[in-house]
């Protein structure tokens, strides 16, 4: 193993070793917070390593790549894990959910994401995705006090296993055509443009259907509201931001390698159309805030699919930008919800009435995140949508772009409903909610990045390069 190999593998190693150390320390020490602290340190350390790593190209001995995109996403996932750990520490203490397994599993999930990000073969890519999903099965079910949490975990597991079966079959068909698991080779053989192989087409259909489950695109979206609703709030933040981001990255690693992705235009077209319409329209009727955000996430994945319809470099760049932006935004949104729930807030919109006065900080963050989701200008949500629609229009998908813009306009209504519930309903003032320093720091950083990403997208876009 050479030194560059070591540098490239270091974030992965840090995350894995951190998870193991957390488990061991948790088994020895009686105090839960030591586990969280070790986990946070190793996640941050992994993020720093990713930023420090020398910019070398592909390394053949380990089969891990280290392009700027890869390092951007790896550090994003690590930072997100650290943020979620900070948020969970207080949330879990409050909910009486003890144990070192939780922080260790968060690190493991981040490990899966990082492995996925740096994969150069379909095997590592698939296993990274599965490891991440597997971590989420445990995390979703982690609230043992509530039966509903384990129920949700089981449901998520069944859906996840089904989707991984589709994914595995799709990859198998692609392999049987290309004869290689290396992504570059497999993509160039199966999406070659001329002389399309029917087996490859079938493989891609299965693969896309499997990914539709993971991304909750419309024909495979039904699990999303239930899972978002039944999961501990910090985990929802990670699930919404991290898992969607990693699944998008899965597609973004594969698609740009193809010589001609034109044959995938049609499925993405339908995914985009249905997700945008059904996601936004279902959210209109929803009264529980997490289910509302779940439908909104379906709609946002529709926008990303729109960017993939474009199929050009700018489309992929827009999709990657949106993955980052959506990750940060949902971290802010669900982080704020976690803070509020920790202070005894219920699940429906009615419970959020008057929260703006009781908890101005969390409400402010939530409002900002909702503005970003709605696509109000100075935020990352606006810039992301702008990039997506620009790429779509450039590729000539006029109808779809116009439908997309209309659904964005519709979506503003239900985001505003939440905001109006927060601020424009007076309720009896009882007491101010408490926020810990960690929560304030995390939410402030997340909100600041939502705005900064929106104002200065160029720096980020420069990092998002695709072969």
């Amino acid at each position, binding site marked *: 193993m050479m030194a560059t190999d070591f540098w490239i593998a270091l974030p992965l190693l840090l995350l894995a070793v951190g998870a193991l150390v957390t488990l061991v320390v948790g088994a020895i020490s009686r105090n839960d917070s030591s586990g969280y602290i070790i986990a946070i340190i190793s996640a941050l350390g992994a993020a720093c390593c990713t930023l420090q790593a020398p910019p070398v190209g592909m390394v053949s001995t380990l089969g891990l790549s280290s392009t700027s995109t890869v390092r951007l996403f790896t550090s994003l996932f690590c930072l997100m894990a650290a943020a979620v750990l900070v948020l969970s520490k207080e949330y879990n203490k409050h909910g009486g959910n003890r144990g070192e397994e939780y922080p260790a599993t968060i690190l493991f999930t981040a490990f899966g994401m990082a492995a996925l990000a740096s994969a150069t073969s379909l095997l590592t890519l698939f296993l990274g995705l599965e490891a991440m999903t597997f971590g989420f099965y445990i995390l979703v079910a982690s609230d043992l006090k509530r039966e509903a949490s384990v129920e949700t975990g089981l449901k998520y597991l069944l859906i996840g296993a089904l989707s991984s079966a589709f994914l595995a079959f799709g990859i198998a068909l692609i*392999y049987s055509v290309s004869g290689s698991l290396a992504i570059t080779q497999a993509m160039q053989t199966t999406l070659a443009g001329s002389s399309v192989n029917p087996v490859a087409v079938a493989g891609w259909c299965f693969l896309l259907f499997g990914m539709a489950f993971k991304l909750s695109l419309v024909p495979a979206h039904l699990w999303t509201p239930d899972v978002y609703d039944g999961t501990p709030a910090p985990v929802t933040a990670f699930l919404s931001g991290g898992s969607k981001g990693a699944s998008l990255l899965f597609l973004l690693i594969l698609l740009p390698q193809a010589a001609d992705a034109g044959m995938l235009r049609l499925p993405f077209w339908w995914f985009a159309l249905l997700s945008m319409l059904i996601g936004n329209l279902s959210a209109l009727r929803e009264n529980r805030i997490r289910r509302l955000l779940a439908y909104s996430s379906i709609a946002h994945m529709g926008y990303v699919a729109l960017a993939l319809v474009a199929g050009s470099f700018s489309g992929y760049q827009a999709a990657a930008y949106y993955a980052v932006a959506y990750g940060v935004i949902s971290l802010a949104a669900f982080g704020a919800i976690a803070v509020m729930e920790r202070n005894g807030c219920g699940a429906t919109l009615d419970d959020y009435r008057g929260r703006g006065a009781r908890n101005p900080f969390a409400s402010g963050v939530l409002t900002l995140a909702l503005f970003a989701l709605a696509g109000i200008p100075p935020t990352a949500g606006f810039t992301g949508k702008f990039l997506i629609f620009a790429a779509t229009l450039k590729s000539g998908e006029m109808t779809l772009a116009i439908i997309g813009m209309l659904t964005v306009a519709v979506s503003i209504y239900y985001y505003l409903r939440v905001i109006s519930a927060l601020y424009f309903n007076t309720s009896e003032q009882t007491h101010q909610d408490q926020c810990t320093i960690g929560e304030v720091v995390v939410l402030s950083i997340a909100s600041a990045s939502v705005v900064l990403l929106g104002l200065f997208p160029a720096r980020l876009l420069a990092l998002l390069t695709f072969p």
Partner: protein
Amino acid sequence: MIVPLQHVLILASLLFCLGLVCVLIWRSNIIMLLIGIEIMLNAAMLVFVGGANHWGMADGQIFALMIMAMTSTEVSLALAMVVYLYRRRKSVDVDELTNQRPLGHTEASTDTAVSQQP
């Protein structure tokens, strides 16, 4: 290669479809649902092994091996969840796994003497 690759692929798709049918018709029974998913994954493994044989490379076999390991983790976790839920509500019906229903809703309480045993 003893048979053309197409025949392997057709057999695998047949198995995959059978697994899918199993998942779709036994939506309410977690055990059968998991079995259906296992059948689907086995179909994927068959394709990988056939492909590995066709191309004379070991990659496909390794992927099949990894699928096995992955699916065993999934099954063990799923069954742990089933046991957890069963201890609390005496049912393994997926239709009851909706958060809107009142919790503790039980059905067809069976003899539990066995579950107390080691």
